[in-house]
Structures are given as structure tokens and as C-alpha cells.
């Protein structure tokens, strides 16, 4: 996996899809032989791939596994980096520890406290270039190793807007300078 998805041409993307189809058929055929119960299971690439390419929050078991297993976290970071459209790194040189947004190449995230309901905050993702690929999800990785995902609605007038409680995981994660944020 030295190339990102974005750098693949149409034929290469189709080849990857064929490979995934073949693997999932293989999984499907082998599913009958597997135990359904998840107790004591180990987590591997398939689990973090499902998280990194899906819209569901990690299960408690996966969350705990990620907090426990540094290598699994490292694999997930690598995977998120590969499948994401853009990665906002940690915010440097912010002494307060909190930020009101992040600026990156083509994408910008702003936090705006609601005037009508000050206990709620707008998370606004703006695109500089209207032709830029629209992200479907926002992932974050808090400094303590906790991961989260938030599905994104369709953009409107070049911006995606989410309203969230100011104390929610999403808002606190984005405002934390040490959180890494990915748009996928």
C-alpha cells in the first residue's frame, strides 16, 4: 500500500475493487465455519478497515482494543491517512490548548458557537475549490488514543454544516490542538 486511493487511475481502482470483491466472497464462503460469538476475539486489519471506511462509531470492544494495542492504532492511523481525502495535523503553537478551527489545503474547519443556542456549536467545513472531492465523514483521533467518526451531510453552497452540543466528543476533539482530524 504505497499508493493512496486518490493516486490510482481508473483501471487500478477497478482492480482494487475486484480484489475486494474476491476477498469478500472468500470471507463469505468461509463465514459458515466461523464462530459467531465475539468473546475473546482479536482485532485485525479487517476490523479497522471496516471502521476507517464506514460511518459507524467503533464498538466498545474495538475502542478498548485500540486503546490497548499501539500497533493496531498505528495501523489505523496509516489506514486513515490512506483512505482520507485530507488530514489536518495537530495544531502547532497554540498555547491555550483550544482552537476555533483548522485550515488546510483546500479544506477549512470552523467552530462557531450558536447565537440562538449558546450551548451548541456549528462545525463548518468549507472548501476553497468548488470542484474538490466532497468528504462523507470526519474522523478524529484524540491524544489519548480514542477515535471517533461523524457522518457528514451533503454540502450546501460550498460548505458542510453540522450542529453539535458544545460539550460533544466532536466539538471537544476538533477544538483540542492535539487532536488529529481526517476528512474521508
Amino acid at each position: 500500500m504505497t499508493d493512496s486511493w486518490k493516486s490510482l487511475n481508473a483501471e487500478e481502482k477497478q482492480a482494487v475493487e475486484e480484489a475486494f470483491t474476491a476477498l469478500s466472497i472468500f470471507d463469505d464462503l468461509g463465514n459458515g465455519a466461523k464462530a459467531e460469538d465475539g468473546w475473546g476475539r482479536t482485532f485485525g486489519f479487517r476490523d479497522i478497515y471496516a471502521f476507517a471506511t464506514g460511518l459507524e462509531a467503533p464498538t466498545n470492544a474495538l475502542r478498548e482494543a485500540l486503546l490497548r494495542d499501539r500497533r493496531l492504532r498505528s495501523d489505523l492511523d496509516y489506514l486513515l491517512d490512506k483512505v482520507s481525502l485530507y488530514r489536518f495535523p495537530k495544531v502547532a503553537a497554540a498555547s491555550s490548548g483550544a482552537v476555533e478551527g483548522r485550515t488546510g489545503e483546500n479544506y477549512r474547519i470552523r467552530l462557531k458557537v450558536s447565537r440562538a443556542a449558546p450551548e451548541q456549536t456549528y462545525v463548518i467545513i468549507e472548501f476553497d475549490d468548488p470542484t474538490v472531492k466532497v468528504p462523507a465523514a470526519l474522523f478524529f483521533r484524540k491524544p489519548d488514543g480514542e477515535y471517533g467518526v461523524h457522518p457528514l451531510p451533503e454540502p450546501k453552497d460550498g460548505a458542510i454544516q453540522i450542529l453539535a452540543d458544545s460539550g460533544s466528543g466532536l466539538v471537544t476533539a476538533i477544538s483540542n490542538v492535539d487532536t488529529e482530524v481526517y476528512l474521508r
Partner: protein
Amino acid sequence: MNLFSVIIATTDGPVQVQRLAKEDPDVHSVICLNGTSEALRPISGAYDDFVRKPTGVIEREFGHPVYRMDISGRVSDGRSWQLGVFAAHFLHNRAQLAERSEDATHVLWLTGEVNNSLDVGTVEHVAEKLERSAEMLLKFAASGQKVILAFPRGNKGEVARVLGEKKTGLAMAVIEQWPVVNTKDLTGALAPYTKDVLPGSTGLEIPVAGNTRAGWFRLAWVACALIVAVVGFAGWNMLGEITRWRAMAADGVYDKLLQDLKTTKTGTCMTCRAAAAIYPVVAGFGKPGKRDIELTASELRAPYKRTCTSVRFATASPEERPVLTQHDGRFAASSAKGLCGLVYRLRNSGSQPFYGWLSVRVRSSKLTRTSYSGGTEHALLAPGKAISVSVKIPNWLRSDVTYTVHAIADGVASEDVTRLMTGSLSRRLNAPGLGEWALMHEVRLTEK
């Protein structure tokens, strides 16, 4: 002071406007559920369009571009909420919107679409909405609150029928009915109850005959029609232009036709410009239209206790289930769980043969393989005959997928339409007289 509780009628039951507040102009307007941070979709986007200029009327009428509205229940897609939302803004502007129903002296129940000229359009399912609201309205009436119904004049019959039914008992509860054709009818009817009773004192005017925006619009059209008639009398030129464009359409050269129309519309020849304005009206005569197109979708699902893999290897036959078509221009969303594929069909439901094109394209997804991302079919279709495009749904799908299903019917086999549908024409044709239908279909990973 009279305080109004605004009730937006929906087919799922009445929804109360709980709060309306101005927001910072650099965010988009939202409609939230019960004061929570849950912004209701897709209604919030539509509300922002309804508020903000130039598409919206609220900013134009009340001066602020962004609001947050809290409501007591979900409002599905559609536009029948617009009259209720307009009334809420009007009353909020006069500080007469009750945020708690127990504070209200009056209860205003509304349904209706509002266009950019503030005309109120007829809506569907009014009887059902009123029946679903009956219990709530009766409770308000029982507690001494005055219940008023406001609805498009075109729906007057439906309202009268429900009020006439003894079983609901609504006729006793409703003190006034306001059938409206324009929001000015509504604000005029509200005037006696609001603080500012003088027409034009603030905000909106009480309607004055012949002084409405729609009136001016109609007058302008009549004037235009007269001018066209006078000029057209002298000009066979106009007829010649239309005949030439119809000949182009008959040959299927729509790209050239559109360029010609565009050039004509910006040219100096007045009769030609008038002809270009008239052409879209006559372009569809004698051609297949929307009513001749039947566009359907079906899900292909694995039979009980079998998987899509067994369907793929033809050891099991898929079960085909039709997908419902909604009123909002979409097929009902399909759950990706156990979904092996989709089949879209274009059928000639008319009585004459036509050429049909059917294109299915994937939106908002990384799927690229042709069998996943859609395709295009076209053929001469005898009455009752159909063409279809199938897509497979990979079982490794990890995000929602939306397909755009685009159907066109025409009397001739047009190369331009084929280029449009296969994606080699970069811009939309949107040619007058071309029978077109487009529907969206979403495949969701999880039930929503």
C-alpha cells in the same frame, strides 16, 4: 396581546413551532428537533433556501438572512411546510409567536407551498393532515384557545369535507378558515389580531387588489403577449424560426438547437427572441412526454438463508422486490443489508413507439467498476416494451451510495442524447420538448 401557536400540518401528525431565533449570518439556517442539536435533514437545507436571498423569501420580507427554528416533530421532505414557516416568521417579527402552546391565545394550523412571488400553492394530503391533527386541535379548543385553519384556496374542498364529517368534531373547534392564494391573504387575515393593523405600517401589506407582485407579473405577461401578437402579425419570421427549430428537434440535433436558441435569445432580432420564448411551449407537441415514461427500480435480494455470493454463482435466484417511488423525486431508500443488486427499467407506457434512453450513474461514492457504478441503455421501444440497466452492490460496501437514474424519451434516435447519457457531452441538454425524468436512489448501509 394575542399570541399564536403555529402548527405545521404533516401527514405524520401536527408539528408545533417551538422557537424561532436569529442566527449568525455566516452559518446556514437550520430546523432542529425539540431544542436539541439534531438538525433535521433534508428539511434544514430547504429551509435555508426558503430563508436566504435570492431564492428565499424570509430575508426579503423580514430582513435577516439566517434563523434557527425548533419544532416538535420531524417534517419530511416536500414544501407544504412553507406556509407554516412563513406564518411563524411573520408572527415572530411582531413578537406574537407563542413558544409554549399553553401561552397561546390562538392556534394557527397551516399547510401550503409558498413560491418566490409569495403565491400559495395547492398541496397534497390536506384531508389526511387535518384528520391527523384533529385530536390536538380539539384539545386546544377545549382549553379555550381559538383554532384557525389556513390552507391553499385550491384545497378548500378537502378541508370542508373533513370539517363536515361529524366523527372528528372539528367543525365546532375551528373558529375561522382562511383559504389563501398569496401570503398577503394570510397576513391580511392576521392583521386584526396583530398589533399593527394599518396596511403597510410594518412588514407586509394587507392585500390591495391589483397591487400584488403576482398581479404585476401577470400584467407583464399580458403586455408581452400583446407585443408578441402585434409583432408576430407582421412577421412570418417568427413562424419560420420555430419551424426551423422543430426540424432540428425532429433530426435530434439538440446540441445545435440549444446553441441556436441561446444565440437567438441574446440577439437583436425582437421577433426571433419572441419565437425563442414561445418555442419551449410548442416544442413538446406530438412528442413523447413524461406520462409516456414509466421508470421503475427493483431490488435484487438473496433468497432466505442464501447469500449474494450464491446469487453471483447462480446457485440461487435472486428475489426481485419493487422499490417505491416517493413524491419528492426519489426512489425510497434501499438498505444495503442483503442487497445483491438493483435493476432500473424504462418502459414505454404510451401508445406510440419512441426511442428511450436510460442512464444510471453513481453519485457520492468511490465505486468505479462499471457493473457497480451504472451504465446506459437505449433502444426503440414499442408500447409496453422496456429497457433496463442493472448494477451490482458489492458486499464490501462501507458507505452509502446514491444513484441518479435518468430517462429520456424522444421521437428520433438522437446522437446528442446518446452522448449526453453516456457522459461524453459535458453539459446538460435540457432541451425544450425532450421527455425527461430523473430520480435519485440511495442505498444505505444502515436503516435511518
